[in-house]
């Protein structure tokens, strides 16, 4: 029948157009939709920081000139920070290698490194352009302690008189120099002492996590270098930070307490998210047993005046730089006031509350 045939045709036509529309819509959604990458939950299963397996999802092309210049904040008063820059001289050296210059060290150089009084990048080979110091070692996890010894030796030989404190960091560590200076300003570089994120196993006085960075006083550096000449410390170890910590104990360099006046940690072996989010690091994770002081997760994990974070990828380097040195809440009075405390926590809490009350009164009076 003609009419049923044309009805059939109409139906197939309609069906076809629906399919055509639907397929096209799907294609467009796939093409136009932004790719949302879910970052894998990377838990670093070794406290002694392994970087050899690089899961670098964030390879960045081109020159990154994330200018760490202070020109953005024209109404900013930096007198105190600048005073500390003159008073507490810090030489930073960054552990890197030829294969990481473009991937990692470059971003360190573009962000926090410029705030050191002196910055050196230590590699197995010299690179005049970057520039890096050539330590004439091999690369590799087992070379880290040897590289560390040679790096400190190099610093001692060439720059001993140019700084008061000597900071070691990795090429995926972010260091906030202003806060490091504030911490160190309370100590003398003539004291045999060093600071970092204190771990408790294996060494009686504890030792400092390599990845979170550690800083030696002038006296500590002097003793460390001398220890190798006199064979007091071993030259080889596959675990850099532990070996250094053992050596420090042998030569009577004190493992310092780097926590702030309210007892919060300042050097961090992970990125802020891993510390701030309760439950992020599972309770079976090695970290909970390693921390010298009771480890805290959630907001109490981290000082407002944090000094370092570790496992910082390139995007996060700039992210931290932006959050710390650029973005700020206008007019906001911070809860934690580092200068008001002589005795920890109680004093600062009380004084902060007092100040808040006074201000509230003043505001309501007006």
């Amino acid at each position, binding site marked *: 029948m003609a009419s049923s045939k044309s009805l059939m045709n109409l139906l197939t036509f309609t069906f076809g157009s629906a399919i055509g529309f639907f397929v096209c819509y799907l294609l467009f*959604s796939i093409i136009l939709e932004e790719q949302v990458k879910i970052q894998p939950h990377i838990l670093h299963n070794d406290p002694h920081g392994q970087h050899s397996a690089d899961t670098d999802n964030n390879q960045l092309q081109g020159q990154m000139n994330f200018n760490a210049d202070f020109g953005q904040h024209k109404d900013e008063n930096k007198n105190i920070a600048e005073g500390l820059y003159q008073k507490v001289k810090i030489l930073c050296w960054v552990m890197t290698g030829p294969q990481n210059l473009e991937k990692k060290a470059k971003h360190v150089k573009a962000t926090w490194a410029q705030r050191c009084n002196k910055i050196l990048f230590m590699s197995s080979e010299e690179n005049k352009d970057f520039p890096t110091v050539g330590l004439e070692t091999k690369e590799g996890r087992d070379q880290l302690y040897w590289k560390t010894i040679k790096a400190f030796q190099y610093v001692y030989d060439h720059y001993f008189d140019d700084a008061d404190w000597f900071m070691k960091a990795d090429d995926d560590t972010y260091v906030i120099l202003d806060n490091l200076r504030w911490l160190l300003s309370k100590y003398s570089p003539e004291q045999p002492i060093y600071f970092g994120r204190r771990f408790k196993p294996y060494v009686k006085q504890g030792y400092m996590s390599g990845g979170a960075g550690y800083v030696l006083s002038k006296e500590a550096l002097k003793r460390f270098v001398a220890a190798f000449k006199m064979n007091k410390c071993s030259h080889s170890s596959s675990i850099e930070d532990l070996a250094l910590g053992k050596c420090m104990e042998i030569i009577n360099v004190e493992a310092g307490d780097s926590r702030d006046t309210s007892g919060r940690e300042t050097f961090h072996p992970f990125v802020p998210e891993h510390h701030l989010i309760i439950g992020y690091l599972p309770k079976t994770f090695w970290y909970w047993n390693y921390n010298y002081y009771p480890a805290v997760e959630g907001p109490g994990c*981290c000082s407002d005046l944090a000094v370092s974070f570790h496992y910082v990828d390139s995007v996060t380097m700039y992210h931290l730089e932006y959050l710390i040195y650029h973005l700020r809440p206008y007019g906001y009075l911070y809860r934690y006031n580092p200068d008001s405390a002589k005795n920890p926590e109680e004093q600062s809490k009380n004084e902060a509350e007092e100040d808040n009350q006074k201000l509230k009164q*003043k505001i309501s009076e007006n």
Partner: protein
Amino acid sequence: MISESSSFVKGVVLGGAFCVVVTLLGHIKVGHGTKARHHEHHHIQAPNKEDVLNLSEGERMELSKSIRVYCIVLVKPKDLGHWAAVKETWSKHCDKVEFYSSENVKVFESVALNTNDMWVMMRKAYKITYERYKDEFNWFFLAYPTTFAIIENLKYFLLKKDPSQPFYIGHTMKSGDLEYVDGEGGIVLSIESLRRLSRVLEDSDKCPEQGGMLWKLDEDKQLAICLKYTGVFAENAEDSEGKDVFNTKSVGALIKEAMSTHPQQVVDGCCSDMAITFSGLAPNHMHVMMYGVYRLRPYGHTYNDALVFLPPTG
């Protein structure tokens, strides 16, 4: 048989062609284009530092108290994770915040709107807000639960703006002739705009509940259309250097973009020092932002700000 298959093929082709035409013309919401568009719209700027320093001590105190922001967060039960994060973090800095939910949820207090449609939700939320709070607040900030906002910077931005004027501010976009504030970046209305909006919402010719088009328009575009009828136009918010302060993306996403588009000047290309919003954040990221914005800072840097904001209680 042959005629049927040929009709089928004709159908597929027509359906596909129709779809292409509709997509290209109507900006069907399958995802937002990420390329920067050339806007021709009003740009309003944050106060200049010089302007601000001319205020006297008394004026500064007065001003800090006088800018009162009411926050509306439109939520649905599926957003519970984000909802919790917003509740625990930045929303505490609003003078008052309320969560307007599609339906009642046991875990959290909310104003139940009893609809799943975003535009209807938005209409109801604004209506209720105007009825209840028109005498208590002068600025109204609407956000989605994936947005993070710095209310102090919002107040600084609004410092010298008169709320009795019709302001409709945020991150603006253009859709054909229509200029609208992208909801992702947050929507700011002055009390005058809210007043005009609450009137036009009653007008079912100009501002109907059903979009009245072939396909549904997003709620932020609908809002712009309704406001336009009352003489209220969208304005893009920028800092004194011309950078957007309302952002529809996260800091991470913006940094990545800046590195490919402005490799020599990533800072300048990324984000404002006085940014007000970022969006597309996971709940964990909100907690990280709270730490990064309100706590983590370098010792020894101080500022002479014109306003004073105390940390919220609790």
